């Protein structure tokens, strides 16, 4: 690199200057074109009277279309036309789309390349494609068979017919055609290509998320083919006689888009990216879509993507390009000694800096031009070569960020975004070249184009494992700058970029509090509340609004989800953030109402709720007032009482825990009242963090547990119940009783059969906390035992599910809690054939924690003298119920097992219930460390093979409800 600098500093300087001049020139042309186009836009974009205005505009096009020589101006005419038809949203920046055109038109010669500056070329291409159809050699529409998508054939065919049949003879026909085209175009893309692009990128879980407007990915892909079938046409020699230049032009423009056939590949390739993120949905790279899609957004159309991307895996579908390039290389280089030299000079740089993929020779200064030219017909090609052009290198691009001309800035930023995509090395280089502060400073730039591109670049830079990049953004006050921009902008795309960047940043622990400090209230006010549909003071007339699962909402909720795991202070801040809990709850309720519970946004919301529910009974202001008064006397009264009853209890000496459980038991005994439990009367509806633990939330979580197919959501909902049912305050008593009254126990028990390890674990722990309530314990003992036991491994043979150690231990602890103090439940355990499994675990398990947990259960069972008869009859004897010496060295003299912190992390450490948060954190780290390899395992989550893959027992699950319940149980008959 240094080497390179020294040798070519002069040439860089020269070229920068030159480029600046060029840019200036272009900008002027652009301005002019913009005016021109705006005029046309206004003329054509008269919605009340499209029938009149459009044909006019179209007529022009048609006229020009007849004369092949005019092809470029045709393109120009078409551009704005197309733009008109598309949604107006893209047009926020009218300059950009047209810039492309203007360049094309302004000079057809050497500068033509610069059209690639254009940001919104996708549209162009699509338009042209359609128009290309009727101009086929035979004038006939393409055979239906050539279109790979059958579902669209209908509309497409119609378009063909119009096109083919009338061939632009009457302006009217054409205009109908366009409209038809645009309609169906909008249908399949839903939005303009531009926004589609954004959507794609924003999606980690786009598939579920955007069902309404985006459909599925495959749809997007499907629609693309109509473009391609024609592309071969345009290359066909026999075609070129009709409109040689236009063909070329078309081909050339289309090329940078998505190469034929590679779209699917690229999309597939990028899928992991989209899902990649993380346990928490941490981050995503803006440009997860195939790189080719991006190119139009770059300075140089064909520039590095093509090269950098020539990795073996991504190169599929690209082969058709190569010959063209090669042809040109052969032709182009020798022609031009200067160019050749330049390339040579650049080689060390390229090799050193960008490593292998960049090493292709033609990747040099002339790369983009050459390649583009290569795709053209030879005649044009020869005109087009301009040795003075080359791609800027990284320091140059960063320098351009400070260029006085705005389009230069924005293009440089866009180019940086592109370069950084999936390239950690470049990200690091940008950081080291001090590019990040410049990008951050551009966030405050008044021009939307500039701050948008800067934000896009930051989003890509902030993605990935390299936390240094995140820190660098933070160190130059990037977080407040992003938040400022979020407050300022109404541009959806920019908001998506900002929140995406914040989401990425939030995955790094040390930044979480910074984000909370600067952005919590803003994100809540600007995104969470408006998108959740919640209204602070609902108008009586207005209908309650549903949540909108926008990308912005998903990103923001993902960010908050990450920061919500940053400890007590973070939780406090989030709970006290005005409107946040209310809005999240509203969003979730709307998700339940709409039966739309599998998407990422819902997952994020539930996870935040779960995290905020953690330790509520200790952390919320005024919690002491709700501490169960009986808890205070518990040490004296209940403690000894229990000791008598349960001699072999395994909590010997662990006072706090014991009391805690006793407390629960005591409540359990008083529990008859709970059936007629009077929830505290409220004079006014609860709001804010109070909502977290109101018994009303139980129904919400239960609905999610019943309906959602998303394992993460299921886990989080079970975790929320687990957190809420822990603790010894009034509200957890209510929650435990409410779960029973809302028939939540059967729902939870059913989830014990889930295929997902973590769901089983969360549910098992929740059941344990719920069984603090005596009635719950009896019910769980009678109805859940079989499912709990079936999750246990039989000795060394793991069950089909192969649950993790943590899960097995959690289940054993839950069983232990259920059989403690209840010989009835111990009997159920024996009847569930558990003893054999427990003994096997106790004797043979490789895991010390499992062994101990099993041993605790066995000892408790043996402590019930009334059961010993039955046990001996089954062939068991005392030795089976004693801890194995090796496994539990701490076993005490009384035969009481030693207490092991790791086995029972629950009460001892937290005094009140498991932390689900910590688990998440662990998960999170594991995730980030593990990178993409893990993703594939995650992905099945999206799969619809749902959790109901269990063998149904004959016993209806609904039996596990409180018998005292008055409501008739819903009947459910098998047929």
């Amino acid at each position, binding site marked *: 690199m240094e080497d390179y600098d020294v040798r070519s500093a002069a040439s860089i300087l020269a070229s920068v200057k030159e480029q600046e001049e060029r840019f200036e020139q272009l900008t002027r042309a652009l301005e002019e074109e913009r005016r021109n186009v705006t005029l046309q836009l206004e003329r054509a974009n008269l919605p009340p009277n499209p029938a009149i205005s459009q044909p006019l505009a179209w007529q022009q096009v048609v006229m020009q279309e007849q004369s092949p020589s005019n092809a470029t101006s045709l393109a120009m005419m078409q551009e704005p036309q197309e733009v008109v038809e598309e949604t107006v949203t893209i047009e926020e920046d009218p300059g950009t789309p047209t810039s492309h055109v203007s360049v094309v038109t302004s000079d057809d010669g050497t500068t033509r390349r610069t059209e690639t500056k254009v940001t919104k070329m996708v549209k162009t291409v699509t338009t042209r494609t359609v128009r290309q159809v009727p101009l086929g050699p035979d004038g006939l529409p393409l055979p239906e068979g050539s279109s790979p998508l059958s579902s669209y054939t209908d509309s497409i065919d119609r378009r063909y017919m119009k096109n083919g049949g009338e061939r632009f003879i009457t302006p009217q026909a054409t205009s109908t055609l366009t409209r038809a085209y645009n*309609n169906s175009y909008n249908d399949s893309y839903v939005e303009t290509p531009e926004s589609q692009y954004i959507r794609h990128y924003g999606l980690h879980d786009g598939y579920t998320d955007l069902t309404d407007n985006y459909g599925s990915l495959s749809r997007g892909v499907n629609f693309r083919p109509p473009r391609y079938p024609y592309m071969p046409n345009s290359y066909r020699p026999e075609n070129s006689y009709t409109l040689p230049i236009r063909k070329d032009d078309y081909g050339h423009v289309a090329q940078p888009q998505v190469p034929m056939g590679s779209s699917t590949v690229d999309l597939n390739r990028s899928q992991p990216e989209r899902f990649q993120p993380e346990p928490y949905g941490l981050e995503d790279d803006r440009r997860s879509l195939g790189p080719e899609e991006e190119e139009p957004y770059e300075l140089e159309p064909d520039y590095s993507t093509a090269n950098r991307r020539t990795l073996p895996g991504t190169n599929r579908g690209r082969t058709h390009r190569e010959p063209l390039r090669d042809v040109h290389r052969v032709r182009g280089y020798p022609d031009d000694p200067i160019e050749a030299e330049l390339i040579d000079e650049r080689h060390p740089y390229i090799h050193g800096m960008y490593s292998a993929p960049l090493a292709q020779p033609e990747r040099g200064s002339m790369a983009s031009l050459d390649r583009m030219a290569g795709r053209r017909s030879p005649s044009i090609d020869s005109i087009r070569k301009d040795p003075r052009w080359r791609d800027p290198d990284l320091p140059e691009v960063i320098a351009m960020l400070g260029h006085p001309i705005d389009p230069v800035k924005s293009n440089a930023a866009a180019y940086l975004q592109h370069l950084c995509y999936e390239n950690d090395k470049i990200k690091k280089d940008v950081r080291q070249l001090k590019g990040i502060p410049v990008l951050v400073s551009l966030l405050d730039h008044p021009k939307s184009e500039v701050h948008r591109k800067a934000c896009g670049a930051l989003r890509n830079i902030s993605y990935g494992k390299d936390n240094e990049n995140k820190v660098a953004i933070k160190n130059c006050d990037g977080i407040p700058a992003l938040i400022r921009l979020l407050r300022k902008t109404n541009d959806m795309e920019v908001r998506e970029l900002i929140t995406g960047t914040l989401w990425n940043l939030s995955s790094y622990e040390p930044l979480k509090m910074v984000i909370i400090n600067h952005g919590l209230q803003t994100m809540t006010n600007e995104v969470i509340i408006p998108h959740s549909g919640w209204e602070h003071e609902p108008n009586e007339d207005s209908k309650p609004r549903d949540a909108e699962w926008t990308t912005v909402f998903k990103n923001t909720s993902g960010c908050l989800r990450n920061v919500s795991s940053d400890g007590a202070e973070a939780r406090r801040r989030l709970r006290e953030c005005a409107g946040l809990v209310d809005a999240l709850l509203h969003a979730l309720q709307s998700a339940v109402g709409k039966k739309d519970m599998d998407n990422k946004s819902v997952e994020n919301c539930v996870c935040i709720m779960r995290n905020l529910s953690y330790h509520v009974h200790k952390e919320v202001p005024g919690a002491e007032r709700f501490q169960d008064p009986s808890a205070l006397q518990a040490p004296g009264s209940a403690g000894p009482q229990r000791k008598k009853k349960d001699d072999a209890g395994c909590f010997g000496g662990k006072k706090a825990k014991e009391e805690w459980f006793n407390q629960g038991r005591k409540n359990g005994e008083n529990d008859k009242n709970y059936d007629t439990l009077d929830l505290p009367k409220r004079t006014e509806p609860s709001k804010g963090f109070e909502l977290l633990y109101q018994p009303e939330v139980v129904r919400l979580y239960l609905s999610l547990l019943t309906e959602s197919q998303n394992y993460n959501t299921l886990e989080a909902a079970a975790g929320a119940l687990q957190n809420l049912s822990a603790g010894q305050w009034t509200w957890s008593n209510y929650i435990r009783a409410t779960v029973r009254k809302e028939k939540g126990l059967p729902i939870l028990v059913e989830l014990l059969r889930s295929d997902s390890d973590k769901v089983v674990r969360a549910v098992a722990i929740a059941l344990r906390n719920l069984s603090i309530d005596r009635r719950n314990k009896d019910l769980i003992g009678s109805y859940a035992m079989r499912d709990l036991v079936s999750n246990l491994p039989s000795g060394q043979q793991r069950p089909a599910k192969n649950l993790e150690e943590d899960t097995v231990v959690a289940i054993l602890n839950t069983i232990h809690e259920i059989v403690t103090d209840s010989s009835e439940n111990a009997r159920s355990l024996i009847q569930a054939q558990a003893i054999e499994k427990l003994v096997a675990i106790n004797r043979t398990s490789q895991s010390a924690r499992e062994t101990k947990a099993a041993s605790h259960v066995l000892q408790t069972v043996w402590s019930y003298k009334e059961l010993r008869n039955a046990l001996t009859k089954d062939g068991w004897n005392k030795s089976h119920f004693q801890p194995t010496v090796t496994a539990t060295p701490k076993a005490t003299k009384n035969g009481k097992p030693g207490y092991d912190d790791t086995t029972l992390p629950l009460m001892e450490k937290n005094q009140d219930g498991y932390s689900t948060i910590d688990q998440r954190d662990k998960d999170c780290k594991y995730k980030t460390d593990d990178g993409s390899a893990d993703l594939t395992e995650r992905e099945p989550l999206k799969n619809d093979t749902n959790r109901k893959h269990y063998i*149904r027992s004959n016993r209806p699950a609904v039996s596990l409800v409180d018998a005292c319940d008055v409501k008739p149980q*819903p009947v*459910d*008959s*098998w047929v």
Partner: protein
Amino acid sequence: MSFVPGQPVTAVVQRIEIQKLCQGENLILGFSIGGGIDQDPGQNPFSEDKSDKGIYVTRITPGGPAEVAGLRIGDKIMQVNGWDMTMVTHDQARKKLTKKREDVVRLLITRKSLEEAVKHSKGSHPRQ
């Protein structure tokens, strides 16, 4: 799927034909139903409108005839072999489905995703 009493119901329906499976003495369909006019509609987790007393598919045996035929959990059954199922008791519905002499059951069902699909396709060609 909600409806106003007295107004004709418009629903996007799908036909599903299930070949009953012989299981011992019984012919089974491999799914379970919930709902009916004698049931508490508020407890139906699948209905959009909580006053809807229709018959809903609540469970499906994996690999069973219903699953094979494409029935899904949460589908609302509109008709069984031509018999209306939107205003029947739970037991009436069950009996219609479990007639001994019939080994094929033709269902008319509706589901949310169908409605959405139609809505979507309608919405997409507004100007044609």
